[in-house]
C-alpha cells in the first residue's frame, strides 16, 4: 500500500540545518498495523506528516496505492487525503465550536456526502464508538477518553484505507488509553491499515510490527508475534 524509497526531508533555518529524514525507505502493506518508535527528534512525526500528505519530502519517492504522490500539489494531496486517510492526534484536535456530531460529520461534508447519508453514517460510527449519547455535547464537556473516541470516530467515518495515529494515548490515562488501543485494533481487524507513532512500548505491542527510528533512519524492525 505504501512504499517510500530514499525519502529525504531537511529543515533549514538561518543557521541550522536539521535532517529529519535521511534517505528513509519503508514499506507498509495493506491491512498492517505498524508502530513507529524512537526518541524525540528522530523524524517520526515528520514521517507521519509526509505519509498523511500534510507535508512534502525534499526528495525520494512515495508510492501510495501504486501512485507516485511525492510531487503532488496541495489540491491533489487534499483530494487524496480526504478519501483515503484518517488522522488521530495526541491532543485530539476537535473543533471547540462544533458538537460531537458536527465534528465527526466534517470529513463527510468535505467529501460531498448528502445530508441524510451523513446523518446515517455519523450515527453509525458514534454508536460503534459508544459515544452516541454525547452527540450534542461540545468537546470541552467530554473527558479525554471520550474526546479521543470522537477523534477516532471522525478518523474512520469516511471509511479510510489508512489511519495515521500520532501518540493517540499520549494524553490519556491507562484505562482510557487501553480502550483507544482496542478500538484501533478492532479497526485493523476489519481491514484498515494503521500506522501509529508512539513512545509507549505497551501500546506498540498492539501492532504487528515496530519500526524503530534514529536520526531520520530506521535502525531496527521488530516483528511482533
Amino acid at each position, binding site marked *: 500500500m505504501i512504499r517510500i524509497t530514499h525519502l529525504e526531508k531537511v529543515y533549514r533555518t538561518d543557521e541550522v540545518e536539521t535532517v529529519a529524514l535521511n534517505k528513509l525507505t519503508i514499506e507498509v502493506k495493506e491491512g498492517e498495523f505498524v508502530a513507529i518508535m524512537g526518541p524525540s527528534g528522530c523524524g517520526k512525526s515528520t514521517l507521519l506528516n509526509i505519509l498523511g500528505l500534510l507535508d512534502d519530502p525534499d526528495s525520494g519517492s512515495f508510492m501510495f496505492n501504486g501512485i507516485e504522490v511525492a510531487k503532488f500539489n496541495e489540491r491533489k494531496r487534499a483530494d487524496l487525503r480526504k478519501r483515503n486517510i484518517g488522522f488521530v492526534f495526541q491532543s485530539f484536535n476537535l473543533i471547540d465550536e462544533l458538537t460531537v456530531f458536527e465534528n465527526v460529520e466534517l470529513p463527510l461534508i*468535505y467529501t460531498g456526502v448528502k445530508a441524510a447519508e451523513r446523518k446515517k453514517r455519523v450515527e453509525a460510527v458514534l454508536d460503534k464508538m459508544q459515544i452516541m449519547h454525547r452527540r450534542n455535547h461540545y468537546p470541552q464537556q467530554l473527558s479525554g477518553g471520550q474526546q479521543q473516541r470522537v477523534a477516532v470516530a471522525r478518523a474512520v467515518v469516511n471509511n479510510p484505507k489508512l489511519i495515521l495515529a500520532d501518540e493517540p494515548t499520549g494524553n490519556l490515562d491507562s484505562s482510557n488509553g487501553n480502550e483507544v488501543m482496542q478500538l484501533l485494533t478492532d479497526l485493523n481487524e476489519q481491514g484498515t491499515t494503521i500506522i501509529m507513532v508512539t513512545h509507549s512500548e505497551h501500546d506498540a505491542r498492539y501492532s504487528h510490527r515496530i519500526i524503530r527510528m534514529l536520526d531520520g533512519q530506521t535502525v531496527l524492525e521488530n516483528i511482533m508475534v
Partner: protein
Amino acid sequence: MVINFFKIAWRNLLRNKSFSFINISGLAIGMAAAILILLWIQHEVSYDNFHEKKDRLYQVWNRYTTEGETGCWNNTPKPMALAISQDYPEIERAVRVNFLPPVKIALGDKQFYGRGRIVDSSFLEVFTFPFVKGNAATALNDVSSIVLTEKLSQSIFGDEDPVGKILKLDNADNFKVSAVVKTPPANSQFEFEFLLSWSYMRMKGWDDTNWLNNSVATYVLLKKNSSLASIEPKIKTLRKKYDKDDPKIETFLYPMSRWHLYGSFENGKESGGRIEIVRLFGIIAAFILLIACINFMNLSTARSEKRAKEVGIRKVVGARKKSLVFQFLGESVLLAFVAGIFAFIIVELALPSFNKLVDKKLFIDFSNPPFWLAAFAFVVITGILAGSYPAAYLSSFRPVSVLKGSLKAVNALITPRKVLVIAQFSFAIILIIATIIVRQQIQKAQDRQAGYAKDNLVYHFTEGESAKNYTLIKNELLASGTAVSVTMTSAPVTEGWSNTWTLEWRGKDPKDRTVINRFCADDAVTKTLGLQLVAGRDFDLKSFPTDSNAALLNESAVKSMGFKEPLGQIIKDMGQDWHVVGVIKDFIINSPYHPLEPMFIAGANGWFNVIHIKLNGKNPTGKNIASLKSIFKKYNPEYEINYRFADEEYGKKFSGEKRTSTLATLFTLLTIVISCLGLFGLSSYMAENRIKEIGVRKVLGASVSNITILLSKDFLKLVLLSFVIAMPFAYWAMHAWLQNFPYRVSIQWWVFALAGLSAVFIALFTVSFQAIKAAIVNPVKSLRTE
C-alpha cells in the same frame, strides 16, 4: 456546507462576545457614517435628475474675455431666447425665467409669502413638474394666470380646490389660479412656489429688448436628433448679429447634468464646484468604512491562533483552501450583515440631526427596491472588504505547523497588522490636524473686525408703503426714542449688491478695470452703521442740502483711485457727478474671508431698498422691537414687518464653514472612536498572547509599570510612525484648502504637535487599560494556565 459555515460563524459570534461587540460596533459606526455621507452624495448627484428631457436641456451662458481674463456668467438679455429659437433649427424650445424676490400673496385678509418665477409659457412643457390640477397647455396662457405648487396651495387654501380662485400679489395685481403642480423636490435648482406668465412681464413694462441688460435665465431644449457639437460653433457668435455694444461676448450652452455639481468657472474654464466637495466626502466615507474594515482585519488576524487549530483540522479532513476562504468570507459577510442592521438603525436615529447639520432633507426610501439592492450590495461589499485579508491569511495556515502548536506570533519588523494600525492612525491624525485648522480659520474670520457696529443695528427691506412713508417712519423712530439714527441704503450692510468698474474720476487710467463696490445711503450713514471716519464728514442733509449728490470713499478706494487729496474729488456714476465729502475705514460687506475691497457710497440721489435702524441702546431690545413693529404697522399696514439683526445676518456668513467644521469634528471623532475600538481589541489579544511572558517577567521581578510600558511601547511606536506619515499629507491638504480663503491663517507647527500628542495620548489611554489589566494579574495564575 454553507449551513455548517454559518453555524460555526454564528457560534463564534456568540462565544467571543467582546470580540463580536468591538467588531460589530466598529463596523456599524463606520457603515452608518458611510451611509449618511452616501445619502448626501446621492442627493447631490441626483439634482434635477427627474426632468424627463434632462439629456436635451441646457442653460445659456456667456463668456467674455478682456485684458486676458475670461469671465463666465449665466444671466442673459431677455431677447436672447427669441433670437435663439429663430436662428437655430436645432433648438426645439427656448425658455426664459425671471426670478422674483419673495412677494406678499393675499387671499382676502390672509397674508402669505411666496417665491415666484415669471416664465415663458412652455416652461412647464420643457421641464418636468407634474400637474396635480390643470395642464401644461393652458396653465400659463393668460396674463393673470398663476400656477401654485402643492405646498403653497396647501398653506393658502388647505384642502380646498384652488383652481379659479383669486390671489392678490404685492398689493397690486389679481391672479387667478390656473393649475397646481407637484412641489419641486429638494434636489432641484428650481425652488419656486408659484409661476406667472411672461405676458405679465410685458404688461408691467418689465420686458425689454435691451442686449445690455443681462437679467434673466434662458434655457433651451435641443431637438431629439440634434447634438450639442453641431450647434456649439454656431451659437458661439450669436451676439455678433444682435448685440451692438458687446458683439464679442460668446454664447455657449451648459448641459443640465453639470449645473449643480460643476457650474463654477475660472478664467473661462470649468473649475470644479460642488463636485469637489462631493468627491471629498466620498473619500472620507470610503476611508471611514475602510478604517472600520481594518479593525475587523486586525482583530480577526490577531485571533488567528485561536482559529488556527480549526483551520488545521479542516485541512486535515479534506478542506481545500478555496472552501476555507469561502468560509471566512461568509463569516465576515454575516458579521457585516449584523453590523449593517445596527448601522441602519443608527442612520435612522441620526438622520434628523444630520439633516440639520447639512441643511438638507435626506431620508431613506425603504419602499424603494433599488434601495434594498444597494443596501445589500453595500453590506456584502463591506463584508468582503473586511474579510478579504483575514480569509487569505487564515486559510493559508499549514496544518502541520498549527496542529503541532508551533505557530507562534512572529514579531516581525513589518507585519500587515502593523501596517493597518498605521493606516488607521495616519488617517485619524490627518483628520485631527484638518479639524484644528478649519476651526482656526473660522475663528480668524470671526475675530476679524467687521468695520462697523453690528450691535443694536437692524434693517428692513422697503416693501409696500415703507419707502413712500420713509420720512414719517424715520421721524417717529427717532422722536419716540426707539432709534438713535436711521439711514436708507441701497443694500443691507451685510451684502454687497452692486459693483462696477465704470466709475470715472479725474486722472483715471482708461485701462483701469478695478471693480469697486457701489453702495447708496441717504443720510448719516457713518452714524447709523457705526463706520469710522478717517477724513471729512458724514452725509448731513440738514446742514448741507447738496449732500444728496455727495459721496464717501473707503480707504481702499482712495488708494485704488490714486487720490492724494480725496476730499472734493468728483466721481461720475449713474449719469451723475458725486462729490467726495468723507473717507471711511474699510468695512466687510461681502466675505469675511476676502481682503477688504474698495467702496464708493453715493448720497441721497442714489437708489434705495433697505432701511437701517440703529436702535437706542438705553432701552431693552424687546421694547425697541415692539415700538419698531407698531411704527411700521402704522405706516405700512398691509405688510408684516420683516426686520433682521445685522449681527445675526453677519453670523450667517460663517454658516458654510461652520458646517464644514462641525462635519470635520464629527468625522474625526468617529474615526478616533473606531480606531480606538480596534486598538483596544488588538491590545487585549496581545496581552492575552503574552500572558506567560508577563508571568515569567513578574516572577523575575518586573513591576506593574515595567509590564505596562512593555506592552504599550509597541503600539506607541506605531502611532509615532503614523504621525510622521500623516504630517506631510495633512500639510498638503490643508494648504490647498486654505487657498480658498484670501484672508486666512498660516499653518503653525504646534497644530501638528498637538495632533501628534493627542494621538499618542488617545492610543496610550486605550492600550494601557489592557496593559495594566494584564500586568496586575498574579503570575501564579497566569503560569498555571500553561
